[in-house]
């Protein structure tokens, strides 16, 4: 037994918990063989450890597993429903609005003279050339036209309704606690 070695309670706990390296473990083994009081103390520690491992576990409320699975199903249903039906519906509406706006932007260019074939002058007899009027597009008329104004008004109203629908959906989700 080493004279300088003092077997403290902490070292005994480390020994019992398996934290000591091989060298220290052998040193404690040697000490315990010659000191029955320390061996008794170690037995107490092991008994204490045994008490820990036999402590009863806390028990959740009855039907806990069922509650978890119900919550999981509810979560999945909430996730799937808008994706499968409503989202696709909404996609079509948004794509429709985007296409209408795209058409408004592109239409004047299609109707403008630059859209005409470049070799068109070659097909016109020369004697008629001065009489040919270059096609123009009435931009001011197009922009101020009642039909465009109505179309824009209708589109904005529709988008407003979609925003309201979105807001109500989000509010319902919050109210249902998801």
């Amino acid at each position: 037994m080493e004279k300088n070695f003092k077997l403290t309670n902490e070292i005994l706990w480390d020994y019992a918990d398996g934290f000591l390296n091989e060298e220290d473990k052998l040193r404690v083994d040697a000490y315990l063989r010659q000191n029955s009081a320390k061996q008794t103390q170690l037995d107490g520690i092991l008994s204490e450890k045994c008490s820990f491992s036999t402590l009863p576990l806390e028990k959740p409320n009855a039907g806990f597993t069922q509650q978890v699975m119900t919550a999981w199903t509810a979560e999945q249903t909430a996730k799937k429903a808008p994706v499968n039906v409503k989202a696709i519906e909404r996609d079509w509406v948004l794509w429709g609005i985007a296409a209408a706006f795209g058409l408004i932007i592109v239409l004047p260019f299609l109707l403008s003279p630059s859209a005409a074939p470049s070799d068109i002058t070659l097909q016109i007899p020369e004697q008629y050339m001065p009489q040919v009027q270059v096609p123009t597009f009435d931009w001011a008329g197009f922009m101020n036209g009642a039909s465009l104004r109505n179309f824009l008004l209708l589109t904005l109203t529709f988008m407003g309704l979609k925003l309201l629908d979105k807001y109500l959906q989000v509010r319902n989700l919050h109210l249902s606690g998801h």
Partner: protein
Amino acid sequence: MSEAISDETLIQQTQAGNQQAFATLVTRYERYAFTLAFRVVKNREDAHEVTQDAFLRAFRYLPDFRGESKFSTWLYKIVYTTSLNFLRKKSPDIQSLDDENRPIQLENDGVPDASYAMEQTDRNAALQNAINHLSSGDASIITLFYLYEHTLEEICQITELTMTNAKTKLCRARQRLKVIVENSFTAELV
């Protein structure tokens, strides 16, 4: 006979879309998960909420589970993190789960502990009560190491502590626990 099916098999079945397999895992681990959550949040209702939330998160992230650690270690990490997040939400100014300011009485080596003299049933009751009086950090590390018999490495994975910190915390938690048990025993004798 669900106990005969290994965790690995149940995980594979869950990953393949079998919800019943996950229900079996929940039943198998509900008491362990609930006990750990209860040790951290110290309230049955809150522990119930935290444990359910943790299982839902586990189900959500199970497809990402690669089996690099034991399922229990992975699950307890989720339970532990969910419990901590719950505590932080409840008390945003919380700084630490540990009770570093609580004094630890120095032990008198060689003198038998008062707790050793107690009957086994009394000792269990006293231990249970004492663990409930520990801080969340102390109670969870004691539970993980002594009750669930996780290794220090696994505890480090669950709590994200370093090995040295985990060992020190375990040692201090054990000392505080002993003080509480002895005090309660002395109080009963007086």
